């Protein structure tokens, strides 16, 4: 049985225990669970564990190898940071999700076979929906249902894909799949799996659930959501579809379009959600390229992104916690009273923009190098362009509009200590690993390649400084000339408009017309039945009792119809 005890299982069991604990005790217990799971993981050697026999197939509950190790490590860090950050939270559901959801993500990362992956995949969807549901209002409820529907759709596609893949290959092991066969045609089973992964990693046009649901969650909920679901999908893509050419273009597009939406978005939470899309895009490109450098870069960047993205979310969250709004138009000028939060936010912003000396710098360079090595000129230019975009919306917009910009007049208190501690740890990791990246590099899957890589070469430094400093210069120029667009309270249409407005209208139309037809048929049927019953009533039966008998009559009528159809059809054939 200890064979089965992997972090995913430990977290999940722990989550269920939290349901029964008193509110004050829960947070200590949650930290203890994370610490225990980390110890178990620490002592685990690379290899496969927990092999189960199930209808003649071997399931591998835990596959602890170089690729999954990195994700498990960073998920532990993120889960711990989140518990610390949300030390004040006493909500049972949120505490439950704070363990169950990372647990599901880790279980998925460690899954060695498709079936186990599927289980955790669905678990991640179900446990995270509680986070979206968190504040419990009508709009969050609707968003949560949309979120759940999309996540489950991903699960259903995955299961269908798994069945097909299993039929074809006869193996349930979660290994790399070929999206196309030798003739270049799409393989159907892998395609379904690909789309399932794509939904979770928010491929372009499948991305809207991120912006739709994440901002609806509570502050801590959003931070957690930003970490696990998409990164689990990134891992799954890296495992299943590394080197799939389609991913390069998908990823490149993913890095591009959020930039523009983020620019004009007023809700800073949503800006960060677009940033998630953009960031995952970088990883997807790396996975698509599929060379040792690129994959190292992709998973390394996933590691880094989890740290600095949540640092940004946390600092924004602290501002929201103190001011009660996430709108750029209503924030601003609060650096006066929240200097520490502001500083930590800037660290995160520098890091996500990949300024030298930060976590972003030492990981993003790998992806761009990977692309350059393959001489993919256009992609390379797009990624550089997207880097400027990252600087724009995550590096400048978030700290600038949250803490500086126009003075909103708000003078909130500094963030509470537990938040500062969590953000502080995140910031230390950003800078620490940025300056001394070797421990992170030791976790990357392709050690041969990384051994010869040095991020701090003069050329790399110059290139990065030129790109970023001149971009900042452009910002300053735009700001001074007044060309930089002012923030206005608005909501921006995105692809989700299609299903939220015309789709909804269409659905409403279908429902009303179906209802109309149904009423028509039903009323006539009832009238017909009543006529029949009244006819019988004249010759037989006592007064009343019509309303009582008609359900039976209705059933009898159906029986007669079924029999009639059966007779006609069998006679005619």
């Amino acid at each position, binding site marked *: 049985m200890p064979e089965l005890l992997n972090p995913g299982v430990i977290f999940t069991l722990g989550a269920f225990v939290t349901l029964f604990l008193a509110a004050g005790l829960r947070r200590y217990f949650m930290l203890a669970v994370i610490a225990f799971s980390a110890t178990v993981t620490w002592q685990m050697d690379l290899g496969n564990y927990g092999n189960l026999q199930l209808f003649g197939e071997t399931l591998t509950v835990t596959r602890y190898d170089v690729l999954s190790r990195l994700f498990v490590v960073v998920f532990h860090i993120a889960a711990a940071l989140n518990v610390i950050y949300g030390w004040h939270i006493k909500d049972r559901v949120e505490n439950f999700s704070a363990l169950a959801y990372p647990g599901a993500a880790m279980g998925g990362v460690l899954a060695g076979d498709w079936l186990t992956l599927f289980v955790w995949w669905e678990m991640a969807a179900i446990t995270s929906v509680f986070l979206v549901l968190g504040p419990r209002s009508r709009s969050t409820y609707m968003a949560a249902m949309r979120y759940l529907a999309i996540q489950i759709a991903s699960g259903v596609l995955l299961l269908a894909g798994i069945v097909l893949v299993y039929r074809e290959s006869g193996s349930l092991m979660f290994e790399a799949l070929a999206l196309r066969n030798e003739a270049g045609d799409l393989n159907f089973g892998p395609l379904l799996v690909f789309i399932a992964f794509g939904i979770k990693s928010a491929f372009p046009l499948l991305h809207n659930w991120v912006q739709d649901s994440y901002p609806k969650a509570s502050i801590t909920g959003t931070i957690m959501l930003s970490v696990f679901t998409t990164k689990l999908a990134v891992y799954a893509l890296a495992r299943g579809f590394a080197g799939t050419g389609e991913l390069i273009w998908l990823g490149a597009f993913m890095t591009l379009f959020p930039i523009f939406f983020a620019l004009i978005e007023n809700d800073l939470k949503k800006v960060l959600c677009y940033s998630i899309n953009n960031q995952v895009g970088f990883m997807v490109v790396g996975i698509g390229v599929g060379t040792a450098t690129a994959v190292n870069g992709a998973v390394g960047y996933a590691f880094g992104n989890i740290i600095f993205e949540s640092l940004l979310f946390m600092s924004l969250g602290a501002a929201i916690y103190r001011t009660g709004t996430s709108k750029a138009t209503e924030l601003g000028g609060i650096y006066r009273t929240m200097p520490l939060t502001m500083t930590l936010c800037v660290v995160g912003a520098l890091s996500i923009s990949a300024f030298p000396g930060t976590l972003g710098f030492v990981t993003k360079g790998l992806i761009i190098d990977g692309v350059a090595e393959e001489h993919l000129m256009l992609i390379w230019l797009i990624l550089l362009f997207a880097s400027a975009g990252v600087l724009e919306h995550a590096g400048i917009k978030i700290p600038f509009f949250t803490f500086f910009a126009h003075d909103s007049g708000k003078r909130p208190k500094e963030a509470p200590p537990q938040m500062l501690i969590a953000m502080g740890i995140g910031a230390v990791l950003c800078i620490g690993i940025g300056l001394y990246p070797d421990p992170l590099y030791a976790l990357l899957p392709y050690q041969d390649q990384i051994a010869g890589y040095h991020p701090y070469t003069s050329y790399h430094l*110059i290139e990065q400084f030129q790109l970023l400093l001149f971009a900042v210069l452009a910002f300053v120029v735009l700001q001074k000339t007044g060309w930089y667009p002012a923030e206005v309270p608005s909501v921006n249409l995105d692809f989700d408009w299609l299903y*939220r407005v015309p789709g909804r209208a269409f659905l409403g139309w279908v429902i009303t017309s179906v209802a109309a037809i149904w009423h028509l048929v039903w009323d006539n049927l009832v009238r017909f039945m009543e006529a029949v019953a009244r006819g019988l009533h004249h010759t037989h039966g006592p007064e009343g009792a019509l309303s009582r008998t008609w359900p039976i009559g209705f059933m009898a009528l159906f029986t007669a119809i079924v029999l009639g159809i059966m007779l006609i059809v069998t006679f005619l054939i």
Partner: protein
Amino acid sequence: MADQHKDHGSDPGWADKPWFVRLFSWGLYLACALAAAAGFFWKKDHPHFEAEGFPVFFAIYGFIMFFLIVVVGQHLRKLVGRKENYYEERE
């Protein structure tokens, strides 16, 4: 949140003071100049693309692209911008 009060502009913080703005601007210009200049002295050993050989490629690219994003991006707002309660009205 208890101590928030509306008094626009009455209390310019340190970041809004002219000396800081000036210091920041000049610091940035200097850094940009240094970075551009450095491009002429250190060259990449094995450039993958010709563009990489051009000393201030990244500087120009970064500047123009940022400009482009902002200028193009704000026109997007005309296309997709809606009132804040756009969806609520429809639900």
